[in-house]
Each structure stands twice: as structure tokens, then as C-alpha cells.
């Protein structure tokens, strides 16, 4: 077989590779949002957290020359954003969705402000493991070059799925998310649990941002996220708040996002722009398909402001 021309087989291969590459930030943001929403809050600000995390990671990596320190800094920044959201929302009559939108704009704006000097320099990238080394076809090698964060995300979704059933912390988050009254009757403080859950959710979103700027696309620009944080929120609903579902849905979204570049790479020159819109169209289709005027969402945490 000709190593450079594998023809139309390149499309599914590129979609697979793209799914793995594009899905990673979706995985982290949606797992973070799943934790937050399971505790009974919605944090729409994760889009802002994602962008700010991307900027922080890139900036720290440029200055220290270590992508891992950048990753840690992004997680810490995300944690701060999450805690801030959780702290404001504990006050009575504060709407978590409105605060989320405010923080989304705030996070992006702050990232653009601090990020200006870092648009030019080149930061070191996060490492990838070449699972495709056995093959001598470059497309296969490219598709199976898997970043460590993707693997961590896959493991994390399994761990979370297990932890929601089998650990004290997991059960407490579910209790608080489903019934504040029951939580109080058990002597739990719902606000504290939600504060922590929102903080952890923010940290995961920050990590998702670090992946954007330190691996794929791999540089800091102001248009780095293009709404992925918001789509991840939709994805959590689609996944019925199940971490494994989040992982699968993230792959699906990632694959949709890779459709445009995949078509371009095999030489489709017309209309591939339309396929760049695939993830957004998918979001819309999913939201319409899963919504219903007469029925409430199955599996939705009872304390969520959209289901209450």
C-alpha cells in the first residue's frame, strides 16, 4: 500500500485521530461540570475558565519552560474561578446561571488582557505517547499519537463513575445535588459541598484549557476555545450526568469537530467549511432531541435550577 495515499480511508482515520485530539478539553470540562451539576449547581462560567486556563498554562509554560507547571497553574486558576462562583452563589437570591455568564465574560476578558504578550512566543508542549509507532503509515502514526491528558481523562471518567457510587464523597455530592433538605437533615452543609464541587469542576476546566494551549492547537490565541466550554455544558445534559456518558459524548463531539479538517486533509476543497460547524449543529440537534415540553429530564439532579 502506498504509504502517503491511503485514499478515502484517511477520512475515518483522521476522524478517529481528531476525535481523540479534539475531545480532550471536552472530557475535562464536561467531567468538571458533571461534578458541579451533580452537587446541584450549574457553572456556565467554565467557558471563561477554559480560556483563562489556556492563557495561564501557556504563560507559565513560556516563563518556566515546563508544560507541567503550566498545567498546574491552569488547574489552580480554574480552582479559584470555581471557588469564586461557588462562594457568590451561596448568598440567597443569587442565580447561578447569571453568575456563570458573568464569570464566562470575566474569565475571557481577563485572559485576553493578561495574554497579549504571550501571543508570539512559543511554549513547550505537553508530551504525547506514539501508539502508532508500529505502523509506517504517517496518517496512522498521526492519528494514534495520543496525549497523556486524554488517557488521564479516560481514567478520570472511570474513577468518577465509580466514586459517585462507592465513596462517601461521591454519595454526599449526590445527596446534596438531589435534595438540600435531606442533606441538611444529615447535618451536611449544602453550600460547602457545592463550593468544593464547583471548585473541583473549575480546576478540571482549567486543565482542559491547558490542553488547548499546550497541545492542540498548541498555541495561545484569543479564539482558542470557540465555545467549547459552553458545548461541554450541553454535553453533560446529553450524557445524563454520567461520567462515562460524558466521555463517550466528548468523543462524539470531538469526532464531529474533526470532520472539517479530515475532509480537508483528503483533498476536499469545497464545502468543508460547512463541516467545521458540525459540533455546533450537533449541539443544537441534541438539545432539541432531548428536550420535551411535557416531560422532565431523567437523571437530572433535583436541586438544579433548570429542573427545579
Amino acid at each position, binding site marked *: 500500500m502506498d504509504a502517503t495515499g491511503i485514499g478515502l480511508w484517511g477520512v475515518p482515520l483522521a476522524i478517529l485521530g481528531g476525535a481523540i485530539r479534539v475531545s480532550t478539553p471536552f472530557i475535562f470540562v464536561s467531567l468538571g461540570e458533571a461534578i458541579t451539576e451533580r452537587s446541584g449547581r450549574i457553572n456556565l462560567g467554565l467557558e471563561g475558565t477554559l480560556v483563562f486556563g489556556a492563557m495561564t498554562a501557556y504563560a507559565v509554560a513560556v516563563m518556566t519552560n515546563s508544560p507541567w507547571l503550566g498545567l498546574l497553574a491552569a488547574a489552580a486558576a480554574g480552582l479559584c474561578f470555581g471557588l469564586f462562583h461557588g462562594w457568590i452563589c451561596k448568598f440567597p437570591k443569587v442565580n447561578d446561571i447569571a453568575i456563570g455568564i458573568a464569570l464566562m465574560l470575566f474569565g475571557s476578558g481577563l485572559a485576553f488582557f493578561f495574554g497579549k504578550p504571550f501571543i508570539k512566543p512559543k511554549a513547550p508542549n505537553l508530551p504525547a505517547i506514539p501508539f502508532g509507532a508500529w505502523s509506517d503509515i504517517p496518517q496512522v502514526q498521526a492519528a494514534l499519537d495520543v496525549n497523556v491528558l486524554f488517557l488521564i481523562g479516560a481514567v478520570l471518567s472511570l474513577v468518577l463513575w465509580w466514586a459517585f457510587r462507592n465513596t462517601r464523597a461521591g454519595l454526599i455530592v449526590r*445527596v446534596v445535588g438531589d435534595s438540600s433538605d435531606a442533606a441538611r437533615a444529615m447535618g451536611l452543609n449544602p453550600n460547602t459541598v457545592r463550593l468544593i464541587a464547583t471548585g473541583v469542576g473549575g480546576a478540571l476546566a482549567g486543565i482542559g484549557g491547558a490542553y488547548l494551549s499546550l497541545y492542540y492547537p498548541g498555541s495561545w490565541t484569543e479564539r482558542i476555545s470557540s465555545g467549547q466550554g459552553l458545548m461541554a455544558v450541553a454535553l453533560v445534559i446529553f450524557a445524563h450526568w454520567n461520567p462515562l456518558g460524558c466521555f463517550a459524548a466528548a468523543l462524539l463531539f470531538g469526532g464531529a469537530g474533526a470532520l472539517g479538517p479530515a475532509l480537508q486533509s483528503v483533498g476536499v476543497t469545497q464545502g468543508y467549511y460547512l463541516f467545521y460547524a458540525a459540533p455546533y449543529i450537533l449541539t443544537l440537534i441534541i438539545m432539541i432531541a432531548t428536550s420535551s415540553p*411535557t416531560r422532565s429530564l431523567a437523571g437530572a439532579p433535583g436541586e438544579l435550577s433548570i429542573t427545579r
Partner: protein
Amino acid sequence: MSAITGNKAVGVETIGMSMRFGAFTALGDVSIKVPAGSFHALLGENGAGKSTLVKCMMGFYHPTAGDILIEGREVAIASPRDASALGLGMVYQHFTLVPSLTGAENLVISREKVPGVIDWRKERGELAKFMDRMPFKLPLDVKVAELAAGEKQKLEIIKQLYLGRSFLVLDEPTSVLTPGEAQEVLGLVRAMTRAGALTVLMISHKFHEVTAFADDVSVLRKGRLTGTGRVVDLDRKAMAAMMIGDQPIAVLDSRAEPRPDAEIVLEVKALKAPDRTGLKSIRIEDLGVRAGEIVGIAGISGNGQKELLEVLAGQRPRDAGEIMVRGAAYAATRAEARALNVRLIPEEPLKNACAPKMTVAENISFRTFDIDGNGKPVSWISAGAIRAFSARLVEQFKVKTASLASPIASLSGGNVQRAVLARELTGKVDLLIVSNPCFGLDFSAVAEIRARIMQARNAGAAVLLMSEDLDELLELSDRIFVMSDGALVYETPIAQASVQTIGEHMAGHH
């Protein structure tokens, strides 16, 4: 695991318990004694201080004065945690189980000490051993949301026993149960007190439960203890007198003779509509309500009554079937309701029949504000006419309000319901659809509201009454249907109605 059912019952006593909120005395000098292993009933109207008393005992409130003795020794209870440590537990009227968790998860997470990682194999083994000693058998592996109300209530009680409590406060434990389930749950609790494993203080307003299960009774009125004694020494009349004092109670009109040939005002045929979950649907094959009769619909909440009401009120789309009012198709538009004189009294009137922040006058005028005396639409709303109209109705229906301009949300539950009745029952009424009209209201308001409904019936209105209170249905209805799992499964004229048969149909045993 702290739970053992080798629990030994403890006796609890309050001495001179008082609770004041500012100038208001919610509880004044109440002393009651609940000996170990007894079943004590606490009777009283809404706002009589029953929950204040038990909240003081459970450490939610810090009483202004008074002491609590457990087994004759004075104890300090500063928080619910202290109360639990002393073996005091409470089963609330509203479930405190977490719906999306299974029974087993609910039990384990409610424990004081839960390991960081839960070893389900070990926990399940211990739970099975614990359940073997329990009088109730329950599935612990299904989500609580999927349990029937009776099973949930049993699980609440089991949870308290699992946590090692030996003194239980039950707050109106049967309000969500069928008569059969109520008998079963209270009977089992009764047996445990007899065996000396448990002491029970039950808040109730159902006399028949008190006489059937309790050893002693204490009655509160306006924060004072107005009577206490052995249940065997007291009859219902004596207990009712202690509860309500000497205030006048509206009497029900005698029932006008129903005419079997009266016009069928409401007719529902082959109705099909999705329920709240969207997974099931309600199906009403044939339901007719004649002028001058009250048709009651019994059923445990969540069996489709709410959906049926919403369809009749035009709040829920229907998939199939027809609704006819006096022979005309009815889609519950404002114009149709007005032309056909259809009136609606939904449950939780403040939420479902009022705009809480608008004034009493505005709320009372919702049906009439946009028409003049001759039924012609008006282009300018007259504030004066609204005020005059509502002043007359407030007077006539004895709505207690600070002023006509107060927001309706500031009124007590009974007065909100009176205001809604005033609006719905004024003018000609051909069809009246009512749902749980007396839920959570006090004695005198209940009597008055039932009297008004009976008056409307005697004046020739067709009344469809949905209620979770079987006593209310038996008192008011001419015919009773039972709704179970979205369908009308049983019909009986009032003369042949038996609580037992109705209860069995409510539970879906047929």
C-alpha cells in the same frame, strides 16, 4: 455499625417548655410525659405549637424556658446532633430520603461515620442481617424515587431504627399513605412499642388513628396544653373540644336529593394525555358529572389526578379524547370558561390560583376585571370597580386581610383559599373542578370550605372533587371514583362506599 434493634425504648418528658418569638408565644409552659415503650399522640390544629414543641425536643429550637428529661434525668439538647446522640429521632411529614439514591445508599450515607470508600459487599451483608430483624420487608436496591409512598414511609422509619434511635417523633406519618398502608405502618410501630423497643410521639390530626393506636394523648391549642390523658378515657368529641375550644364551626348543608336524570355537565371520553414523566400516560375512558352532584376522585398522589386536573384546566395538552361541557367541546379557554360557567379551585391555591405578589383585590378580580356589568369587554380597567367588587366578596367570604391592597401572599393559607373561593364561587357556577381544597388548613377553615362546596352543589353545580383525603371525599361526594396508575379503576355510589375496598383499589391491588 451503630444500629442495633436490641434498642431499648427510652422515656422522655418535657417540663414547662416555653418558646417565644419576640412578643409571640408559640409555646407556653407545656409539660408532657411520654413513658418508655408508650405510643403518645400529640393533637392540635395548624399553628397550635405541635411542631414548635417537637423542634424544641429535637434541638432545632432552643426553648426560652423549660427542661427535657430522658429517663428521668435532665439533659441539654443544643442541636439535632445532641438529640441523635441521645437516641431521639424524627420522621418528617415530607420525606427526607434522597430520591435518586437507592434505599441502601440512603441508609449508609445517613450514618454518623461513613468510611471514605464504601465496601458495598460488607455493607450489604450487614444491611441484610439488620433487615432480618425488622418487621418491614423492603427492597433496598431500587432507587427511592421508584418506591411507593408507603414503602418510603417505612424506609424513613427503618432509617431511624438503623441509626439506633429509640425515641421517635412521627410528624403526621400517614398523610401520604392509603388507609391500608397507614394501618400497616402504624400497626408495626405499635408492635415495636409494645415490645419495649421504641417510644413514639406521633403528631396527628386524625382522631381514628389516635384512638386506634395511641396509649396517651396530649392536646395543644394556641401554644398551650389544653388536655392530656389516656386515650381510652376520652372520646372524639372531648378531644375535638380540647383542640378547637368553643369557636363556631360551619355546618354542612344537608345534602339536596340528587336527581339521577339531571343534565350531564362534564363529560370526558377516551381521554389520553402524557403524565409528568412523559413515560406513561393517563387514560380516562368515561367520566360524567351531573348537575347537582359531587363526584369524588380518590387516589394516592402521583397516580394521575394532577395531570387530569391540568388537562381539564387547559394546562396540559391531550393526545386524544374529548372533553365536553354541557354538550360543547371544551378546551379551557378564558372565553369558553366564561360562557359555560366553569370554575376551578386547584390545590395549593397560592401557587396555582393566585399571583402571589399582586394584591388581594386584584387576585379576587381575575375573572371579572376585563368585563363590565353586562359581560362586555372594557377597554379601561376601573380600579374603583375592582376595589368595590372585592370589598364585597372579602366581606361575604370572611377573608381576613389587613387591607385590600395587601399582597395575597401575606394572607394565611385558610384566607388565601377563602379569597380563591370568593372569586370562583361568585356568579353562576355550572361546573366546579376542585382539587385538595383543604390541604394544610385548620379546622374552622376546613369546615367552612367544605360547606361552601356543598352549597355550590345544592345550588345545582356539577362538582368534580379530587382529594387525597378519603374522609373528605366520604363526607362530600355523591359518587366516588378511584384513580390508580392513570386510570379510573373503581366506581361506587356513596351509600355503598367502603373505606377498605376503596383503599385496596387505591393501592392497585385489584
